[in-house]
């Protein structure tokens, strides 16, 4: 691919989004002038204060919301609804409560041969540490386990693009670290394009090739920070700490807590 534009998996140009407000006629401006690019195979994180419009932006890119104004291209075409080749991991848990863990994880694979489906389901159940819970129903699991089911379902579907909206938010600290490492491993092995939303700056710096920092509402992208720390990332390396502190500074805080918000 020699043409630079060909490599772009996601392109957002001058995107605006507002919702109707409580009073009729009023509007809540959530996104203003958002532009971003994600190259094929790239891992990009979006960070921003909560309520700034991260989920809104990701839902627009994912095809679940229509922008008020602007242009959103994914894989070379304007986004017109969701696509099985681009799987979304929802912030509010989207695991189906009427299906077992293994039925949920195999949900995107029903067109595959049974043997292949079972194989993949087994593989991803093991990866997210849910072996032994294949026949359990979501209501029998903790919030963190349910979140892992959803992540496994997204990975098992073998999508080219993953949209992840704070997917590790409900997990405990150790599981979160493990899931981050697993995600990076899968991303490297399967060359997926990942657009990942989080409010956790450390998480963004651990994961991303590039971090896009959003401002408060009405949000736009304040700055982008390229993370050049080689993987697996040394979380004590000067480069890592510098990138982290830079993002803290952009968001108006210092890394040691406090500061003006």
């Amino acid at each position, binding site marked *: 691919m020699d043409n630079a534009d060909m490599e772009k998996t996601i392109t957002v140009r001058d995107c605006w989004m507002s919702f109707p407000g409580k009073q009729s006629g009023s509007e809540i401006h959530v996104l203003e002038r958002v532009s971003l690019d994600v190259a094929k195979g790239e891992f990009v994180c979006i960070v921003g204060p909560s309520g700034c419009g991260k989920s809104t932006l990701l839902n627009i890119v994912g095809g679940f919301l229509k922008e008020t104004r602007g242009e959103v291209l994914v894989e070379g075409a304007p986004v017109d609804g969701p696509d099985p080749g681009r799987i979304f991991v929802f912030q509010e848990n989207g695991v189906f409560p009427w*299906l077992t863990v293994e039925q949920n994880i195999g949900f995107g694979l029903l067109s595959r041969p049974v043997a292949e489906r079972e194989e993949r389901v087994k593989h991803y159940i093991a990866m997210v540490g849910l072996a032994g819970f294949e026949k359990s129903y979501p209501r029998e699991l903790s919030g963190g386990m349910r979140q892992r089911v959803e992540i496994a379902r997204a990975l098992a579907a073998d999508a080219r693009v993953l949209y992840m909206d704070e997917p590790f938010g409900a997990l405990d600290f150790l599981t979160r670290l493990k899931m981050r490492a697993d995600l990076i491993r899968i991303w490297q092995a399967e060359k997926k394009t990942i657009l990942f939303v989080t409010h956790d700056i450390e998480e963004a710096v651990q994961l991303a090739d590039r971090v896009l920092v959003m401002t408060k509402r009405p949000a736009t992208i304040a700055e982008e920070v390229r993370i050049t720390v080689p993987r697996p990332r040394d979380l004590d390396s000067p480069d890592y700490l510098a990138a982290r502190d830079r993002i803290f500074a952009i968001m108006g805080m210092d890394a040691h807590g406090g500061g003006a918000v």
Partner: protein
Amino acid sequence: MNRRLLHIILPLATAVLFLVGWHTAVKMSGSDIFPTPYEVLRGLGELARQGLLLKYIVASLFRVSWGFGLAVIVGVPLGLVLGWFRPAYAALNPFIQILRPISPIAWIPVAILWFGVKDTAPVFLIFLASVFPITVSAMAAVQNMQQVYLRAAQNFGLSGFPLFRRVIFPAALPQVITGIRIALGVAWLVVVAAEMIAVNSGLGYLIIDARNAGKRYDLVVAGMVMIGLIGLVLDLLVRRLEKFDEVRWGYGQR
């Protein structure tokens, strides 16, 4: 274990107290028309020996099965469709909301006019009484479905009938079953009322007939007792549906 015992002993104690109170009240009032519990039991025995008890129960259950069964067959799909397609909802919901508050009892003259004094009339009344709760709950179930399930399903490329079968229907099912349970209770209420007017068999008929033919209040109360007991059994049966893993998530923590 202890809780189990409690759930058996306490209701039994209530029942015994009630029966004793009933018996004493009849004795103290000196009434020779209103029966004591024992007389009611004797009345039940008499009906059973004559073969009338079983016959009337079967007759009532038969009518409920038809009316209620038709209501499920019509109401569930209708409700799901109304919940899903906004134009269908806009077109039909006002109509449904006007029909719904009309008591099935008010339809009795119309039912007799249309169907005569045959089994069809009570079946029609039961159908009318149960189809609305079923339709409305199925409709609400689809409308209140969590958006994230729909989005996830669409993300996996589902649309049309597969979307309906694999996501919308299972997501709505817990609330649909609740509607079915309510409707069965209503159906049982209505069959008894309908049998008091339109037919000559069934538990409702038994009550009216026992009163008219010789003031046999022991049989009147016997009929009432059977109606209550069968209603309880029907409700327990439908409640079992709520225990299935596919729908248990929909009922909160119990």
